């Protein structure tokens, strides 16, 4: 499954209002894998995704897409093949499911094939198919999360970036969402980078994970290795030596 790097961040530093959010971070997403970014609140996980997308301004470092350095511009990323599913189930609540998906295909030049693509995506999400004409605000939290992911898929991404897809969802729904993410990865070979705090539910689905703490990568590797090392408990429950205070 592993191969060339689809996305690579080299030496990325970012700050907000004088606080370092990322400090010389190196992270890579290889073709066909699912990579998790984990860590406690304020570790800088979401900032990594924002850096890839040109939403966060880089102090230093470079972003590479398929081996080439890029200067990310938010509205051009989907056209390149990099799609972000932002945190908080941000679907277009006043539009229908179908319209949300159409907007998801905005970057596609061939608008004639759009209907077919949408049908294809809806086949992956039977829940949404049944309600394609209803407004997104009428959906449950889990359905909205599915819609946000589905909307991203319409663009046919090579790299799919997910920001905390489990936030505010019940454990059962979280399982469904992750199963769906895995299914997409297997069926389309989409490379996926997912930011999560809900670690244990996630680990069985991912190939590799990075653990961040205070803007730095403190561990990287296969999930089994990370669990055995106990690094997660240390980072989350504050037993790490480098901890503040």
């Amino acid at each position: 499954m592993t191969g060339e790097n689809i996305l690579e961040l080299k030496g990325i530093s970012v700050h907000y209002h004088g606080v370092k959010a990322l400090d010389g971070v190196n992270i890579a997403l290889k073709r066909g894998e699912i990579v998790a970014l984990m860590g406690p609140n304020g570790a800088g996980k979401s900032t990594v995704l924002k850096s890839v997308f040109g939403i966060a301004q880089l102090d230093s470092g470079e972003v590479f897409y398929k081996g080439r350095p890029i200067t990310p511009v938010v509205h051009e990323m989907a056209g390149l093949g990099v799609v972000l599913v932002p945190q908080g189930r941000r679907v277009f609540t006043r539009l229908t499911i179908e319209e949300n998906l159409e907007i998801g295909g905005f970057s596609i030049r061939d608008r004639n094939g759009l209907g077919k693509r949408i049908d294809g995506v809806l086949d992956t999400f039977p829940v949404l198919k049944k309600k394609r004409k209803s407004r997104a605000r009428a959906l449950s939290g889990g359905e909205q999360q599915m819609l946000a992911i589905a909307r991203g898929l319409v663009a046919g991404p090579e790299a799919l970036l997910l920001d905390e897809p489990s936030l505010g969802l019940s454990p059962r729904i979280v399982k469904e969402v992750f199963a769906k993410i895995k299914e997409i990865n297997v069926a389309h070979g989409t490379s996926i980078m997912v930011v999560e705090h809900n670690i244990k539910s996630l680990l069985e689905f991912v190939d590799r994970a990075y653990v961040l703490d205070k803007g730095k990568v403190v561990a990287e590797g296969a999930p089994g290795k990370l669990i055995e090392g106990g690094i997660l408990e240390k980072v989350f429950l504050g037993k790490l030596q480098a901890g503040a205070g």
Partner: protein
Amino acid sequence: MEILSQLIVNSVIAGAMYALMALGFNLIYSVTRFFNLAHGVAAAAGGYAVFYLTSSLGQNVYIATAAGIVSAGFLGYGFDRLVFLRLRRRKTSSMVQLVASLGLLTSVQAVLAILFTNEFQTFPAGHTLYNVLGGAITGTQTAVVASGFFITLLLALILRHTMFGKAVNAVSDDAEVARIVGIDTDRVTGRVFFMGSAIAGIAGILTGFDTGLGPTMGMGLLLKGVIACIIGGMGNVWGGTAGSMLLGFAENFGIWKIPGQWKDAISFVILIAFLLLRPEGMIKK
């Protein structure tokens, strides 16, 4: 009975005129989230463009009208490119954009007065009277009602069924996510300014045919449009038009008992009442 019919006809005419202002104002607000007071001067500029083309250059009325609509559109587009886009990029508050639009309104209005004097200008237009349900209506006024109706319909169809319209809805719903899914929001906003201002141009041109042009006409038209939008519900096509009709009826039935000079005051009293009692407008988003 006859008075009643005439009042209804007058209300619909006024409502349709306000709707033409409200539609564009609302459209621009839905993607930019600020009160664009320069919208009024786009209407006046459209009217004066037609006046210039017909009176000074002797152009055919229909060609001049088309050109007037397009120039109003470009004026609005220019406002966005030169002023509002820069302010948006700097993430300035909506108040800053509102003050800038006030500046555009005053200065362009003054330029119109310098170019065309403060005199009231009228178009050479026939005033054939038609009879509808016992109320009299001129040809121009028929055009006002027809434009109000068709443009509301057309705009609703565009927003519902074209990719551009869906992009506008998406930007208005959540501009940041719209960018993330690949919409160039600045481009969409520029086009919205063009469309909205062109519609305002229609209102200005029809006012010119109906009653004549003055450099400050934009302000009066704009205020009615803004009030209509707010009482109808900001950011909603049908809301703006419904609000316009309500305003048209309230004013015209109001002056049945109250002298006509109080029209503007009446509409603001309605606005303030709505803001206090039902701030979200008649139709919720």
